[in-house]
């Protein structure tokens, strides 16, 4: 066991010190003010109307799905808008939206994973490319859900 741990430590150290340059980490940012999902009423397999949705992702440190930690929005007329106001420095802006079960429930149990809204129902998290427009330009991310539950996202 000692030998294996020593190997792991040595290999990790070698790779850590092999390249300490940061020239390729040249990201700037994109300032996202809101994320809006519409067309939720197109999808008949689940009734989103009136339900509270929450949004989470690396931008939020993948915080636990609690009311306090995640921006939330109530679906009205098939649309929900989340206020983000966050600088995104990663090549992609990644996020996941899902219905909250109940305000009383905290932690990982707060959301209904079966009905999360990503690139598709039951699919992966949503991602859009970083537009690298800098901190002074407000950008919004919008998505429309089709009847089959898939969502097309764009940065505007």
């Amino acid at each position, binding site marked *: 066991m000692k030998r294996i741990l020593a190997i792991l430590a040595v290999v990790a150290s070698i790779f850590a010190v092999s390249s300490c340059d*940061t020239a390729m980490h040249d*990201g700037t940012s994109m300032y996202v003010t809101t994320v809006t999902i519409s067309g939720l009423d197109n999808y008949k397999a689940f009734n989103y109307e009136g339900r509270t949705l929450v949004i989470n992702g690396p931008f939020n440190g993948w915080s636990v799905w609690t009311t306090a930690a995640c921006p939330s929005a109530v679906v009205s007329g098939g649309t929900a808008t989340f206020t983000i106001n966050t600088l995104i*420095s990663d*090549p992609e802006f990644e996020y996941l939206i899902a219905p909250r079960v109940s305000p009383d*429930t905290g932690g990982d149990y707060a959301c209904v994973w079966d009905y999360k809204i990503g690139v598709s*129902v039951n699919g992966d998290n949503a991602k859009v490319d970083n537009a690298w427009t800098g901190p002074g330009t407000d950008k919004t991310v919008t998505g429309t859900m089709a009847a089959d539950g898939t969502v097309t996202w764009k940065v505007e």
Partner: protein
Amino acid sequence: MMKKMLSFIAAFLVLGGALFADVLVKDLGDGNAEVTFLYKGAGNEVVVAGDFTDWQNGALPMAKTDNGFELKKTFPMATTLKYKFIVDGTWLFDAKSPDKTDDGFGGFNGVVDIAKLVAVEKAKASGDSAALEKLMASQSGLKFGTFTQLNVISNFLTRSVQDPTKKGFETDSVQFKAKSYWKLSGTLLPDAPAYIEIRAFDGTKDIYKVSPTGTVTTKAEDGINALATGLLFDPFTYLQGDRPYLGHFKAGVNTSYVNIETAYNWAKPAKRSTIIWTTVKDSDSNAGYLQFTNGSALQSFGDLKLDVGIVPNKTLGAMALRSWVAATYGDYTAEVQWDAKSTAADQTKVTNFFDSFTGDLIAGVKGTYGPISAAAQVIMPAASSTIDKAIGYQANVTYTSLMFGATAKFGSFQPAVSSLYGNNSDDDNIVNNQSFIALNPWVLPMEGFKAGIDSKLNTTYDLKFADKNLINLKPYVSLDFDKLLGYTFTVDAYGKMDLDLATGASETFKFNEAGVKYAMTEVSDIVPSFDVNYGIQMGTVKMFNTLMANLATKPGVNVNLGLGLRTTNDKATQADKDKNELLAFYLGANYKVAALKNGVFYGAFVYNMDPYDDDKDELKMSGYRPDKGIDDMAGYAKFRMGMKWDF
């Protein structure tokens, strides 16, 4: 004496009959044993997938016999196997397996402890009742299992964060990733089954980290210091970021007339796929339940077998119920399932439950008559307040002979149709607002050569072909040169393509994917198996070619290596071309260390692609290509080393 004799008879009946009915073991006398797997149900193509086959990746086909399907394989005596059958593409737990363990998906894997089975056979042969009683006692009680994984991962950028034309190789982070789930399954007391899963820890710690803007957010010195401090003085809290917590929990009691099971929060319900659809999926979303099913005295009445259940539960925070009655007589089964979820504003009063609810009613039958098996299922919304005339249905018919066979399917689902607890998205399940016709013929002109085509026409629920007329085609061929010419290798190939015949379709023919697999067994004394997989994936603007080889060696070292090439087509924009990473490759190996409780030591370097599953040593495949998107890991590389225990 009488008591001992009775217990011996009971032990003999239980162990020799029910428990070991469908897995036989034979001591070969050289430290190995021959294990025979038997499957006696319906099906055309049956394979055994287990931890000894890298599950689906190296699943072993079973030979058809007069009594069903059979596979013989030799293992070292001190081996414990986990396995399932895959019958015509459907995973099945072998209900007659000698033992079972949780499969992590709400169901079970069969377990074969070879040494124990051999000991039982010997005790039976010698009439050693004391040994047999001891072996039987070891079958009860809670058994410990775990999935534990410790990883050191170095992450790299292979192109700049902002300027995709700038390529290179630069450290992004070094992480320590660890997860450990502890499972206790079995019986608390006789007839009191329980399953307890504890999340001991599951977390990732940065040892070194650079932000996308170039700031070193975790210095190596600080990261190593924090890691050493955390692991030495309080590893659980450090890795978990919190205390270990109870994940899945189920417990119950079985009586002659009723079996009761209660489950806490994320405990997955048992999956139901009795007729065609998955009508209860093993989902995490149910916030606890209390389940009543018929006990052993009410399960069989001669040739008639009954399966009855009623399960009050919480679904989406609301009072809910799922219930079913299924009856099987010989090769015929009928089932009715009723599901409901309360929509009452006040969810604190049980008396509100029937005031207003939504749900569904599902009914179906299936049967086998000679070479023909057929199944039909129907679903209707069943809400308290409105009567919706929406309906969904599907019928499947399969004909099987020695030389050819075919499956025909027809399904139609109106927009308002969906299953409360079932699977509403995958193939052979409810997909609302559509109809489909599928035909899957195959031929076996000679032993060792099989060819066929899976075809499916998708259209709207009301058969408006002009609006939607998409045909999925998957031709395939399978050659076993051992049976054809006596050479120990197989070649399998398939393609996937779409024909879009709807009015105004932008692209009539679309080629999606193809794969070829060459697999050799008994290559040499030290190489028991070797395979090469070629796959091609077509995206909107990109194509990804992959060549992946896997080599197993007798000393126990397994090696994977592969190459990928991404190219863009004429639809690609300059931005697509700039972001395209042409070359991708990986090299990985693993080795089971018997001295460390059979932990598997592994390492891999992946560059612009990562075909491995969740930083483990197992490849995640779809057909003969990585089960990842074309652009997965483009622009990134990883080196990881770790150990895992999975038993």
